[in-house]
């Protein structure tokens, strides 16, 4: 995801959480487009004319590195369980337990609000060989993630240190096309890209990608401004599997989008603000991310919006944990990465975050927690989580979802130019 997001200052995370109770999605909370930092421009100036990094595979890390008892963890806002202690400070119960079990103290921060922006910030440091100050960062599968891997800016993971991942992780997340063999990354949480529509304004059932092209919805259809989402979903809609697609297919997909645009059916290529437009009635049908729809209905107090994966296929994306080169505490990092694949921990996180957990076994734990809950609200909330396809998707759902086409840099340029010719018009 390369979204344009900025959290207005007064909308602090704790405030939002209080407003929306427990079930808040990270993406939903960040709704609203932000100004784009042109600081990235200057930062980028420092990158011109670089050579491939001399540092290659980092296996030697695992021979030499020792546990230090410290972990610097950089993630996204609203993407972990929180509590408030007696002094009024925000705490992270799952991290507290981790410290208790392993003796590793976690410095948790939320520096990432936009992949492109964050990448622009760390790239010059990584290029210069300076540590960026984090042992774990959470990066969405994207051109930026591919670049991080291709530049050898991520530490290659040691599978022997990730037994929980291989034991408890779902088969779907163990097979991600953008990181075959899980060499550099393992998932934190995932989500779907599909179609959402307003059931109050559209009486028939929406099942197909082609419903986004229905002239009946003229001027009320929203698509994503992100070339990865829009391009890949369109390829799927045309019956082409993204990873098998060729540039000529991309051009065909772009032509289809162009026709949607020129006929006036399309209203706008939206960024994160799509969900606001859908909620406000500016659009009635739109490309969407799974978690947002759930959250929007919760905020509105109704079930007007419905999220579906089109029958032609939907997209799955994953936010991935990875260790940047130069990390000071790699052993502590990989220890934590393994730790969150414990179903109990995964359940704790899932209950708080409500995105697709990579650990199917967490569902049983959530159900147990629901059964054990004493007050009715909590019980209902936990039951909802356990039954939510947004947290524990069915195999049928997973079977028709695909990752984005993996793009090497040259392909990425070509891909962006082809789709931007329509999207950035």
């Amino acid at each position, binding site marked *: 995801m390369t979204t344009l997001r900025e959290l207005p200052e007064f909308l602090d995370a704790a405030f939002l959480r209080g407003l929306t109770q427990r079930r808040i999605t990270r993406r939903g909370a960040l709704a609203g487009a932000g100004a784009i930092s042109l600081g990235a421009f200057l930062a980028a100036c420092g990158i011109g*004319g670089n050579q491939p990094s001399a540092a290659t595979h980092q296996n030697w890390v695992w021979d030499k590195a020792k546990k230090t008892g410290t972990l610097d963890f950089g993630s996204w806002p609203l993407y972990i369980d929180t509590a408030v202690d007696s002094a009024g400070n925000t705490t992270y119960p799952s991290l507290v337990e981790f410290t208790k079990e392993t003796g590793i103290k976690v410095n948790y921060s939320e520096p990432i609000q936009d992949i492109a922006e964050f990448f622009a910030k760390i790239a010059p440091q990584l290029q210069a060989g300076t540590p960026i100050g984090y042992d774990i960062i959470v990066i969405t599968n994207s051109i930026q993630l591919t*670049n991080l891997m291709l530049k050898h800016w991520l530490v290659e993971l040691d599978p022997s240190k990730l037994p929980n991942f291989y034991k408890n992780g779902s088969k779907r997340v163990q097979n991600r096309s953008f990181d075959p063999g899980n060499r550099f990354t393992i998932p934190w949480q995932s989500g779907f890209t599909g179609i959402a529509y307003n059931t109050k304004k559209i009486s028939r059932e929406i099942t197909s990608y082609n419903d986004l092209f229905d002239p009946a919805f003229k001027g009320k259809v929203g698509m994503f401004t992100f070339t990865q989402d829009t391009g890949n979903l369109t390829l799927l809609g045309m019956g082409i599997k993204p990873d098998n697609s060729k540039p000529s297919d991309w051009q065909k997909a772009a032509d289809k989008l162009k026709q949607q645009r020129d006929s006036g059916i399309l209203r706008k290529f939206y960024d994160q603000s799509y969900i606001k437009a859908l909620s406000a009635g*500016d659009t009635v049908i739109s490309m969407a991310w799974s978690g947002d729809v759930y959250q929007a209905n919760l905020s509105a107090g109704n079930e007007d919006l419905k999220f579906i994966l089109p029958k032609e296929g939907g997209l799955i994306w994953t936010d991935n944990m990875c260790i940047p080169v130069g990390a000071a505490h790699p052993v502590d990092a990989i220890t934590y990465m393994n730790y969150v694949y414990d179903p109990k921990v995964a359940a704790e996180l899932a209950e708080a975050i409500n995105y697709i957990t990579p650990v199917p076994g967490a569902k049983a734990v959530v159900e147990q927690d629901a059964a054990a809950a004493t007050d009715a609200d909590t019980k209902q909330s936990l039951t909802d989580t356990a039954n939510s396809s947004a947290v524990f998707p069915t195999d049928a759902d997973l079977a028709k979802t695909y990752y984005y086409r993996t793009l090497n840099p040259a392909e990425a340029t070509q891909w962006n130019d082809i789709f931007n010719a329509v999207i950035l018009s």
Partner: protein
Amino acid sequence: MAVGTATVRRPALTTRWGRALAPYLLIFPGVAWLLIFFLFPLLTLAVTSLMSGDFVAGFQFTWNFNNYTYGLGLYATQYSHSLEYGASATLIAFLLAYPAAYWIAFHAGPRKSAYLLIILLPFFVSFVLRTLSWETLMGDDGPILGPLKSAHLIPSDFRVLATPIAVTFGLAYTFFPYMLLPIYASLEKIDRRLIEAAEDLFANRVEVFRRVIFPLSIPGVFAGVLLTGIPATADFVNQTLLGGAGTTMIGRVIEQQFEVSANYPLASALAFVFMLGLLAMLLLYQRLFGTDELVRAR
């Protein structure tokens, strides 16, 4: 007496060098600032725009003029959007700001500052938030269009958002203070006795405005048009929030090429062309409506 003269003269001699250096010392910080924060990035931009390669393999300087021809071919429409929306927004801002500035300068009496503050108050709020609230206000079923549609005063598929109109008015609104303030300053500066002189010479109110007040406010209008026109043309946030498909401005393309596609050479080429284009128009504008002569005459 002679002793007194000598003691006075000695420090004068020692400060002679300081006096000669003073102008250079005074302009040094400004020049250094420009060198570091303007000239250097500009140079980097120019160099980057002639590179080829990709992010992972690295970019090499190869006199790759292809970035320019390719970029211009691909994004000519977006350049023209920028021009079109920027110019219209400037015109609208002018039409809105001039009467307001005029009224405050000539008719607001002792409460001028209060009125100025009231007009500028909304602009203390971050412009992203302001534009976001526009989005809510002008929604298809929002508080303005909703009731009009219910009353069948406008067709149900009428919309403001996701149109060039919304972008233009959004830009005009965003940069309104940059138009208002210089115009106000130039109107406020006008010698009121000149207005009496014009009345004395048989000019009625309309003629006083046309022949004296407006010509004398032209420096303010000139500055206002620059201060509004340049950022409005370069802006992309308004277009991102308020525009629809087919309204993209070049600023957004540059931003996307930089941040998302990491195609620095192309982004640099696009930015450079944009800058040169603006500069050319600036010079032309200065040539046509410049105030050199007026300034000199004063």
